């Protein structure tokens, strides 16, 4: 089942076209990875889905991004509900300079979407889902900045989970982590895909092939090829894709 349908998406930063006619259907409850050389528009594509690019002066889009039947690019689309449903994990872990618990309840407090009395349960639930509960249950009022980078990134995911999103956009979520932490976050993603649709941008081709069900390859703002991960890595149809994954281009 398709969760996100991107149709004829064009995005301009001023005069520069960063996305060219991108069409892609992202399946529900799967991990989809986007690969491609630096500057090809992977982050831009991700940031269009939750409309973070609205904040960029001079950015214009046309085309459609349809989530559950509605075009989220419509000017009337409710941004708050969009961003509650579509969470984003950033390249560098960016917990707020608050306690672990406050980080997780931040979304709830902002949206008023849960009673104070339920906060403790939600904190526990969210931390359990990212496998941090056992480590942190006695340190919930410690500053989130005192955690290790891996814990911080997990906390950032827990912070999203607390607001009950359906889609997780992850922009190079492991690039600040060491290989062991990376592997554990990958494990976490595989567990999470049961309940969430995950789109991950990565520069690490092994990572894409290890964890993702489908893969898209981008080049200079265009989506060159998109399909099942096995196919893209073993038997790509486009020569450019082949060159890129074998390291001859990019």
């Amino acid at each position, binding site marked *: 089942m398709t969760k996100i349908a991107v149709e004829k998406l064009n995005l301009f930063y001023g005069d520069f076209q960063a996305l060219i006619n991108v069409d892609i259907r992202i399946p529900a409850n799967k991990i989809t990875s986007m690969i491609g050389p630096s500057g090809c528009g992977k982050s831009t594509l991700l940031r269009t889905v939750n409309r*973070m690019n609205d*904040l960029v002066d001079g950015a214009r889009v046309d085309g459609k991004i349809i989530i559950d039947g509605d075009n989220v690019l419509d000017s009337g689309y409710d941004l708050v509900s969009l*961003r509650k449903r579509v969470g984003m994990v*950033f390249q560098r872990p960016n917990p707020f*300079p608050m306690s672990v618990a406050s980080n997780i309840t*931040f*979304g709830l407090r*902002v949206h008023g979407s849960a009673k104070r009395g339920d906060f403790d349960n939600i904190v526990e639930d969210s931390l359990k889902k990212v496998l941090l509960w056992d480590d942190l249950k006695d340190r919930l009022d410690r500053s989130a900045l005192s955690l290790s980078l891996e814990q911080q990134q997990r906390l950032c995911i827990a912070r999203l989970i607390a607001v009950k999103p359906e889609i997780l956009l992850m922009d190079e979520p492991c690039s600040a982590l060491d290989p062991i932490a990376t592997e554990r976050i990958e494990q976490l993603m595989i567990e999470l895909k049961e309940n969430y649709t995950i789109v991950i941008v990565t520069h690490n081709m092994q990572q894409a092939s290890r964890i993702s069900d489908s893969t898209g390859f981008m080049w200079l703002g265009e989506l060159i090829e998109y399909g099942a991960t096995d196919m893209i890595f073993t038997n790509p149809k486009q020569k450019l894709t082949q060159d890129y994954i074998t390291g001859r281009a990019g």
Partner: protein
Amino acid sequence: MNPKLAQKIAFIILLLATILVIVPVGMIVVIIVVKGAPAINWEFLLAMPSKGMRAGGIFPAIVGTIYLVAATILFAIPVGVFSAIYLVEYARENLLTRMVKLAIINLAGVPSIVYGLFGLGLFVIFLGFGPSIIAGALTLAIMILPIIITTSKEALDSVPRSYREASLALGASKWQTIRHVVLPSALPGILTGIILGISRAAGETAPILFTVAAFYLPRLPRTMFDQVMVLPYHLFVVSTQIPNIKTEYTYATALVLVGIVLIANLAAIILRSKYRKKI
């Protein structure tokens, strides 16, 4: 020159310069304390002045100073902090914001006596407040606005972009992001600006000269529209306008003024470090 020798000479010059910074501060404090402390007692702190200010206490000047500084801060903090938020978070780079920024820089360079005359013209005469706490506080507030705006702006600017992005990506509105993420992170820096503002407001004489300071008024103010005695001006008065006054009395007045500024700063510093710890 041999590099080792050069290194030694440079070190000594730098060290001397640094020590030179401490010397005047130390001397001021020592002299004021040594000469003023003996005259400080409850009567001095809590009694009305008497015998043409040669005896009695400085109670009305202490109260006047506290009222005046508090009112100044009350006016200056909201305007200063809100305009800093507007400039950093909302304003686009255009002619208006460039003019505002230029105005702030220039405001900081205006001599304090000019603020005094401005306050006299606008608040005392034109708006008809007369010499009063409100006229003095508004004048002082305008004077410390640049300090508060500049430090608040720096504090807001230094809040990492990634915090804002995280908050917005969670569906928080811009204002919620400012209120719950940006302001708490910037608060220690903003408090630094407020500390500087308090010290400046408590110590200046020229801006209060025509707007609030009373030469001799041995009673406490009842409303914002009353005139009050204020420590810096009182200090000026007792050291230049009153013959045959005991020097301890003058130094004790200075000591109290320094003490009040110090206590206010200390309170703000404690508040700030509390906030830092929370982060």
